[in-house]
């Protein structure tokens, strides 16, 4: 569904990604794990077109997207929940969700989807008229994911959904991610520092070290790999 072919991206003048190649198949959950500053977020921003790659190709369903602007990429069905959640602080919860559906014109369907979101997250329904900036970290993460769902993505890019959340809340979020994958049949590209949880959730995993992919395998194989255990799982 998505393929990166030797992508090189720069953050200012610093090369953040070196020859990144990876594949995401339709319907699966893949994860990209790595330490702080390894280039995980840059990878997602390159896919979304916010940091366009300087060389290499990104293909979505076989078509090149690496020269498209971010709004065109969203229109194709690739949505990102960025690191730090990026809730619009002054807009209410309902307005934040509505913003997720910015490119859609099917108002009736949008209303139905909104109701679906509210049944999925009753917490958001209770707070629909509060400014997004007032929510707790976990609630903001739910809102950020819901906002991305409002765009009806085919491929959902999630950047550090567990960041700054209590273990219990993190569990809830990951259950929801699984649910989105199975119920909505949404392909998921998950970037995480919490390698243990990410590998338990995903089908396959890639390991990113200082801008280079050093390993990729089935998630269960990575979980039992000794090097991975030492470097990322603290075993």
């Amino acid at each position, binding site marked *: 569904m998505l393929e990166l072919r030797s992508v090189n991206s720069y953050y200012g003048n610093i090369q953040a990604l070196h020859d990144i190649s990876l594949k995401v198949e339709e319907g699966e959950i893949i994860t990209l794990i790595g330490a702080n500053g390894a280039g995980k977020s840059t990878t997602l921003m390159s896919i979304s077109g916010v940091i366009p790659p300087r060389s290499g190709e990104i293909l979505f369903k076989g078509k090149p997207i690496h020269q498209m602007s*971010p709004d065109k990429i969203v229109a194709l069905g690739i949505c990102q929940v*960025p690191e730090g959640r990026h809730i619009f602080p002054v807009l209410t919860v309902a307005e934040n969700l509505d913003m997720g559906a910015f490119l859609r014109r099917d108002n009736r369907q949008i209303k139905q989807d909104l109701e679906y979101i509210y049944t999925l997250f009753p917490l958001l329904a209770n707070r629909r008229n509060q400014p997004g900036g007032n929510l707790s970290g976990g609630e903001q993460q739910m809102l950020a994911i819901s906002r991305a769902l409002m765009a009806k993505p085919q491929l959902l890019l999630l950047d550090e959904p567990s960041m700054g959340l209590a273990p219990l809340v993190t569990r809830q979020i990951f259950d929801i991610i699984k649910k989105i994958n199975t119920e909505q049949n949404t392909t998921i590209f998950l970037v995480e520092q919490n390698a243990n949880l990410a590998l338990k959730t995903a089908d396959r995993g890639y390991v990113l070290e200082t801008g280079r992919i050093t390993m990729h395998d089935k998630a269960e194989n990575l979980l039992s790999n000794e090097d991975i255990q030492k470097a990322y799982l603290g075993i």
Partner: protein
Amino acid sequence: MEYFIELFFSGLTRGSIYALIALGYTMVYGIIGLINFAHGEIYMIGAFTSFIVATVLSILGFPLLAIFVIAALAAAVWSSAYGFTVEKLAYKPLRNAPRLSPLISAIGMSIFLQNYVLLAQTSDFMPFPQLIPEFGFMEPIAGIIGSSDLVILLTTAVVMVILTWLIKFTRIGKAMRATAQDRTMAMLVGINVNHVISVTFIIGSALAAIGGLLIASHVGQINFFIGFIAGIKAFTAAVLGGIGSIPGAVLGSFILGLTEAFATGYVSSDYEDVFAFSLLVLILIFRPSGLLGKATIEKV
């Protein structure tokens, strides 16, 4: 008391003009964090455009109302074209450059446009045709509020209502609010941020152009330099109200206008600018984020 009311209305008139210009500063700042120093020149170009159109139309014998409306539309369209082009030429290539670069580019654009109009026109003041007649029904209160004051106040009010509606209830307004709050996230929900920035420059320029037309016909003369002082004053008003805040720009403009009017009326017109800029200094000392602005950490 009558003198006080007269000064009050004169202050509101000034405030309206400042508001029309200050909105452009504050909207552009809100969206891309740039002080567009060429904005005063966009206003000046609006005044010149309406001058040329009004002169031609009055020679052709058009009725006054038609001249007013056509000149306003022409000025808005022409100034918007300038605002749009300035952004594309001078700011867009520097979008990811250090913050100082677009600022210097903006000052350069301001000087360029001033000198361009200086060369294309002259440095002399030119008499601006009186586009707003003395209304008969205003005669009993003419000592307190003139016809052109009334037209300026009403036009500004209508423009503000339209702008509020645009920002609150339209799709592009929604996109503008999202971009102002979080540009990266706006891109990620599918907003074409370049388009939003262009529209912001176009709207801001059109408002400034209407301000240019109104003040030119109120004062009765224009030259190439009017944009500089009006631009600085409107910028002061925007900072006063909290740069980036739309209600703040309007509030700051009216406070500045009233301050100037009362300073002129009760002290001396020589001290008008002293009071205006003292106000700015005081605000910057005691409330750096402005009256309605939010305290934010400087983003690098």
